[in-house]
């Protein structure tokens, strides 16, 4: 086993008087490579530009309809070297997968292959306009269609809507398909059932689509209580939204029975596919009776998270929902040509019941090219290995921690791609937040905290398949160390992190006196 900590550093070595680095304060506020960086608005000037453009003629005639912008805008500029340095310095205050293991449960922070970045920048993908004549963008249509065919095969479903822009947008797409299908049969149902452990986007989506949201009860195993669900089903229930594998990291064993019961009651089954990476290549959701599922290309298929997007959320659909899918989409005709199906030619392709359009243009092309390169790289055999290694890595963490941390569902069997722990047994007033911040000092991005809501002080750990055993062992060592400190009631954790670019930030102040844009006035 690789030595987990080769620096010789020990937690007790931090105990200097102020809990901080030993050494004098610096005049700049910098600490060697840890560099402070002012705001653009403090270093830039409206007279500076880093782009060479011609100066406009002084009194050039214009046709702006008398709407000329005479007043100053207040946008500072920097020269190119200053710009590169500003953002390079800022970047170094960020944690990313490239720096280390990023065990953020439910978010699937796996390695982002650089081939995918290269492919997305090929001129035929990056520099084409969405409304170019079809014959000048057939290759782009083929990318969308090829990815669509892969996603349909991997999920065992019948159709796909490629245009949704992210997971939550995909959820909305799926729920709107369900709503359209119900309305088409004159069936005005009002309720969508969602488990308490669901992502917040699920109830928000259902409400946005005009539904009332009710909870589905869970059983002691952390899964949907099938009998309670059956008891609630009825003519007012439009459908259920179920995450599988669920947010407790468990496979919903009764998924097929759930689907059958919902269908028997006239409803539809939406599956939140955020955790598809646990089963991709090994299990096809279509075999479990679901009607719609979004696929986060930025999770399962490794398009970069980019500090909060862009994502991409294609939605696979069952035969029952297929007619209602939104425009546009691509279709290959018998002659092998791929077409874009939009409002004007939907009739020709027999797609007359589309619920509408979710976005301008055709979807997240830049994510499609990356996801397709990822899928082709892995192939059918590699994707199966992806889910197996993701599940193996998560179980390795679960079994390496369960003697120390409360693992509420460890008794009910193996986990899938993520391991869930709670804060039971922490000493003093210490919390999951404190443990997380201490983990930052150990050089890790913390796990997902306080989600799912059904476990007190939840810690959801998702290592992903792109971590080596050595990396896992080092993480487990660090995780065990902070867990032991939490159980021992080590009060210094309340002050953590000590070594990050910032100490704990005052979120209450930020919300009480919101300062959301820079202004010249000192406060």
């Amino acid at each position, binding site marked *: 086993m690789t030595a987990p900590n080769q620096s010789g550093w020990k937690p007790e070595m931090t105990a200097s008087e102020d809990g901080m680095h030993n050494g004098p304060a610096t005049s700049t506020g910098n600490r060697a490579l840890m560099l402070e960086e002012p705001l653009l608005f403090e270093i830039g000037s*409206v*007279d*500076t*530009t880093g782009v060479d*453009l*011609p100066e*406009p003629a002084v009194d050039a005639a214009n046709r702006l309809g008398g709407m000329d912008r005479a007043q100053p805008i207040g*946008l*500072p*500029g*920097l020269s*190119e070297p200053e*710009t590169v340095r500003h*953002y390079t310095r800022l970047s170094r*205050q*960020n944690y*990313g997968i490239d720096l280390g293991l990023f065990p953020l449960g439910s978010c699937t922070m796996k390695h982002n*292959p650089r081939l995918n970045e290269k*492919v997305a920048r090929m001129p*035929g*993908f990056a520099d084409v306009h969405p409304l*170019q*004549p079809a*014959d000048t963008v057939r*290759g*782009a249509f083929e990318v969308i269609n090829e990815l669509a065919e892969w996603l349909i*095969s991997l999920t065992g479903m019948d159709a796909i809507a490629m245009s949704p822009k992210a*997971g*939550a947008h995909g959820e909305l797409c799926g729920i*709107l398909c369900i709503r359209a299908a119900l309305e088409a049969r004159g069936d005005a149902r009002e309720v969508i059932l969602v488990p308490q452990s669901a992502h917040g986007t699920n*109830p928000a*989506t259902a*409400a946005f689509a005009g539904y009332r949201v009710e909870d589905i009860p869970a059983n002691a195993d952390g899964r949907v209580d099938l009998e309670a669900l059956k008891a609630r089903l009825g003519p007012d229930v439009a459908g259920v939204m179920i995450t599988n594998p669920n947010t407790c990291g468990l496979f919903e064993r009764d998924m097929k029975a759930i689907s059958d019961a919902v269908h028997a009651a006239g409803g539809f089954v939406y599956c939140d596919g955020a955790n598809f990476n646990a*089963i991709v290549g*090994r*299990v096809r959701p279509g075999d479990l009776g679901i009607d719609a599922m979004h696929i986060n290309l930025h999770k399962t298929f490794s398009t970069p998270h980019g*500090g*909060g*997007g*862009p994502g*991409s959320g294609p939605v696979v659909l069952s035969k029952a929902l297929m007619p209602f899918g939104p425009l546009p989409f691509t279709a290959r005709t018998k002659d092998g040509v791929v077409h874009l199906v939009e409002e004007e030619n939907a009739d020709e392709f027999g797609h007359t019941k589309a*619920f509408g359009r979710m976005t301008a*243009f055709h979807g997240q092309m830049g994510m499609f090219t990356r996801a397709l390169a990822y899928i082709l790289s*892995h192939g059918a055999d*590699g994707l*199966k290995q992806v889910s197996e*290694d993701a599940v*193996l890595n998560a*179980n390795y963490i*679960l079994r390496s921690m369960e003697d120390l941390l409360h693992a509420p569902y460890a008794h009910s069997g*193996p986990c899938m791609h993520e391991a869930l722990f709670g804060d039971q047994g922490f000493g003093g007033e210490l919390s999951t937040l404190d443990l997380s911040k201490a983990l*930052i000092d150990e050089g890790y*991005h913390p796990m997902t905290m306080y989600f799912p809501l059904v476990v007190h002080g939840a810690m959801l750990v998702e290592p992903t398949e*792109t971590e080596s055993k050595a990396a896992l062992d080092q993480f487990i060592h660090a995780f065990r160390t902070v867990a032991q400190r939490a159980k021992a009631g080590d009060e210094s954790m309340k002050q953590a*992190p000590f070594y990050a670019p*910032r100490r704990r*930030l*005052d*979120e209450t102040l930020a919300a009480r006196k919101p300062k*959301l844009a820079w202004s010249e006035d000192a406060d």
Partner: protein
Amino acid sequence: MRYLPLTDNDRADMLATIGAASIDDLFVDVPAEAQLDGPIRGLPNHASEMAVERHMRALSKKNLAAADAPFFLGAGAYRHHVPASVDHIIQRGEFLTAYTPYQPEIAQGTLQMLFEFQSQVARLYGCAVANASMYDGSTACWEAVAMAGRVTRRNRAVLSGALHPHYTQVIKTMAKFTKDEIADAQPSIQGAPDADGLIGRIDDQTSCVVVQYPDILGRVSNLQAISDAAHEKGALVIAVVTEPVALGAIQAPGDLGADIVVGEGQSIGVGLQFGGPYLGLFAVRDKKHVRQMPGRLCGETVDAEGKRGFVLTLSTREQHIRREKATSNICTNSGLCALAFNVHMTLLGETGLRRLAAENHRLACLAADRLAKVPGVSVLNDSFFNEFTVRLGQDARPIVRTLADRGVLAGVALDRLYPDVAAFADSLLVAVTETTNEDDIEALATALEEVLS
């Protein structure tokens, strides 16, 4: 497989630690009938980096890239020069491979960038507060309509006929389910926008008036009269800007009374990318509306040592806290595109943005004058920024295809956007940016002369 570090020895050791005999033991909760007995059939197995690159390059080469032809398409997506340093910075792993900044102590890079981005967008739009981005202009526009409903407690949105038809379709699609009433119209094919017609449609039940600026035909209208009329009826004004570069030349919607300003940010830093990912911009003129805004907001605060820092804030509006009572279901937004915008706008600065806008307008004026000389062609617009409508006297769509065959990407035929409106069939939207040169304009004019004669 090059992305998977575990060796078979590792896997065996780890299974032993776990106490499982085989990997199948870890999938024991998946019913046997739902498990495949091997890799999914009919799909190829893994491929080398070289093989994948070759496949993708072949697909890429089937497309005509904008740089390889005189190029005049716009209609909500514009080709601009993006400085090389923008792409370098967004590919830094600390930005590219970071998550949403939920742990602010180790995400100050992303958070400070978002604060700068919000500040830039607010100033560009003439607003008090901008959010940390939405998916794209069209979805931001729907979110604004939904927000106006929450603010005014009314549910009748009046859309300008000259709003991008895709945006109109997105709004109408969503409204079918939320039961909002959407009053849309068709654009008037004339030199000036029909502001009076729009004002005449505002009534006491109107939640908002949605008006594009410059509009879908490229015309620049004075929003102030529309704002005054809407405010008199208690309605909000939503201004939609699909070409942010225009705001380096024309007045900001917030300064003309718009209450919510939304739009597409793709022109600054993001590139064409066949329609996505793009960058939804969303801002409010008055701070009092902040708590009804959708999406993430980054705010300034201090850390435990009193140092300035940034956090995501006012998240009680959002789905992960508020669930079914959230202002929107949005979670992931367009963080990396916001960074690209932020970096490109920093490189431009106000001086560069104004020069960029002036150069766009200068070339567009040149193009309009040159095209007006083509027999049979007339320019519709009284006013425009970098995009205008020409009438060709015959169906524009086949002309566009013919010109594409000749290597000229001539613009967007209005028929592509309004296939049901016969009166628009002869109209072509022509966009001209700093990437267009005088040779390109001459190539378009010459090709049109030949094809139309």
